[in-house]
């Protein structure tokens, strides 16, 4: 009977199903509206940077439409990429970030594993403590850190201040707590039976970590890696404080120190430098995003 009613009542059926799809359509319209809004908001600055980087200094200071390039030139790029100074900054940044990522992972992964799985006295408190240290801003920490490193330098006689490698000791204070926290979350989501199975299969703690936990928590590991790299690459305050000589600078500090001379802003090169500096994280994101897949644990247990 009900099927008959639906077959005959064309208009009624339309209203019934129509209300469903109308809700959906409106939801979609709103999502697109806000997505476009956000895209414009976040992509305008980089676009402006690209436009400016393609202009000569004369055109930048000229009173023309700032959103259009009338005489495009790659001079800024050529100048920076052939400048030893800029390449030095780039090199310093790369080596610092890469080493910091490796150090961070070497500390965070075992730490997270211990805090997530080996229940020992005070492990929960310690886990919270690790995260709390991340909440202390670097603007509060840089003076005590400077004093500490100066003290170490005085006692050991090893030059640390105004050397790029001092950053290798400082950056992990930013990256390790957060990465450990992320990894604790990922490790904790791995079913307990998985390590119990591994233990019964004869795996040691280290083998359980390297052969089960790291492969299974790979998406989390990649997220942590990206985070550590981005933080190291973009860090501004610490290198500004701890390094001063031109040849010791990393990219963010180097660009602002050398391309702003007094009150003369070399906008074209600043924008070019910033764009070139943003390239490595962008490339890393692009490649690793594919691995950012959730559901790698699917199939381990029921669910």
């Amino acid at each position, binding site marked *: 009977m009900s099927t008959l009613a639906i077959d005959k009542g064309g208009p009624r059926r339309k209203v019934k199903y129509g209300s469903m799809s109308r809700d959906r359509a409106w939801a979609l319209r709103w999502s697109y509206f806000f997505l476009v809004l956000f895209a414009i908001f976040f992509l305008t600055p980089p676009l402006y940077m690209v436009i400016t980087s393609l202009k000569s200094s004369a055109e930048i200071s000229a009173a023309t439409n700032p959103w259009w390039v009338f005489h495009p030139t790659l001079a800024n790029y050529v100048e920076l990429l052939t400048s030893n100074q800029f390449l030095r900054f780039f090199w310093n940044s790369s080596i610092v970030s890469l080493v910091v990522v490796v150090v961070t992972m070497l500390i965070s992964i075992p730490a997270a594993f211990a805090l997530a799985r080996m229940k020992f006295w005070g492990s929960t408190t310690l886990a919270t403590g690790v995260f709390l240290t991340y909440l202390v801003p670097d603007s509060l920490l840089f003076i005590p850190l400077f004093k500490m490193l100066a003290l170490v330098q005085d006692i050991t006689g090893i030059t640390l201040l105004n050397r790029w490698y001092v950053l290798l000791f400082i950056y992990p204070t930013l990256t390790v707590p957060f990465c450990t926290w992320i990894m604790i979350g990922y490790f904790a989501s791995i079913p307990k039976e998985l390590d119990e199975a591994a233990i*019964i299969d004869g795996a040691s703690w280290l083998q359980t970590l390297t052969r089960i936990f790291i492969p*299974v928590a790979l998406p989390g590991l990649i997220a942590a890696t990206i985070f550590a790299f981005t933080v190291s690459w973009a860090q501004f305050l610490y290198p500004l404080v701890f390094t001063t000589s031109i040849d010791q600078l990393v990219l963010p500090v180097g660009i602002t120190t050398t391309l702003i001379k007094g009150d003369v802003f070399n906008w074209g090169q600043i924008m070019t430098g910033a764009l070139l500096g943003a390239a490595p994280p962008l490339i890393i994101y692009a490649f690793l995003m594919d691995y950012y897949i959730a559901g790698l644990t699917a199939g381990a247990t029921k669910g």
Partner: protein
Amino acid sequence: MADVALRKVVKRYDDVEAVRGIDLDIADHEFIVLVGPSGCGKSTTLRMIAGLEDISDGDIMIGGDVVNDVPPKDRDIAMVFQNYALYPHMTVAENMSFGLRLKHYPKAEIKARVTEAARLLDITDLIDRKPKQLSGGQRQRVAMGRAIVRNPKVFLFDEPLSNLDAKLRVQMRIEIKKVHQKVRTTTVYVTHDQVEAMTLADRVVVMNKGRIEQIGTPNELYHRPATRFVAGFIGSPAMNFIPCRLEDVGGTLQIRLTDRIAFALPPARAARYHALPRTDKFLLGLRPEHLTEAHAHLGPGVETFDTVLDVTEPMGMETLVYFGLEGTPVCGRVDPNAGAKDGAPMRLAMDLNNMHLLNEDTGVVL
């Protein structure tokens, strides 16, 4: 392969005693099922045998050696978990061979063992798949394969079928039994499902509140339960417990269920219960299959009475009938053609040759 023995094993979590002094001897090749309601300590006991939980007190022996302080990997056991616990990034073959690879077995030997186990479990075609490409039943086979290739002294199963649907569970139950018949490894199997316990076990261990209630073969537990808990836990539908009293009428021992209904006990039963005090409160324990429709030719010890049915449940090969005896709900099993109807009167027969008498206060079967 080896025997397993538990001596006064205790597990305490802070002030809670999860396992309260268990003694259990498991013979070589035996299939033992630990069964009981949730929280009875059966899983904890299994995990203590595996070495995943520390023992608070007592001794656990595998193959005659005390293993209290031996880590799980050196106990030579294999365990199958309820949620399979397969390594998601490894193929079926890699999952099965993980333990052997850790112990640096030669490649040829590993391959031979994996092939053999896969053949035994009928998963040869799946050997290169990842766990997420498998169904629940297939995953459980792989988990069993992982246990078999290790050729351990003892298999431990922790509710391995609980995540499967009812049909598959029956099928896998038979598979597990077949596998055990082939490999004959000593097995300890934990379940809360009494049907699984009855069908799989050589001997069933019924646990309740951290203690062992009774150990016996499935038939022993079914026909000669020691306590009210075991009598009520084993068997489906559960045994009826009807409050009753014993009386002497004209030299014969009678059992009185209600003011209206009282039966003379069969001679064997009368002799057995003769010495019991008449003042105590008792329970008549009677399985539903011993409460059937009355017919013309009733043997000795089978007594009839009239009642009005509350509800009937036709099951096909039988019909379950429910009625009340002075407020106590009672279940019987009658022939589907006996004419049982909801709310209709019916004459039923009680087979007192198969009765149990329980002390109502202590719960002990007399």
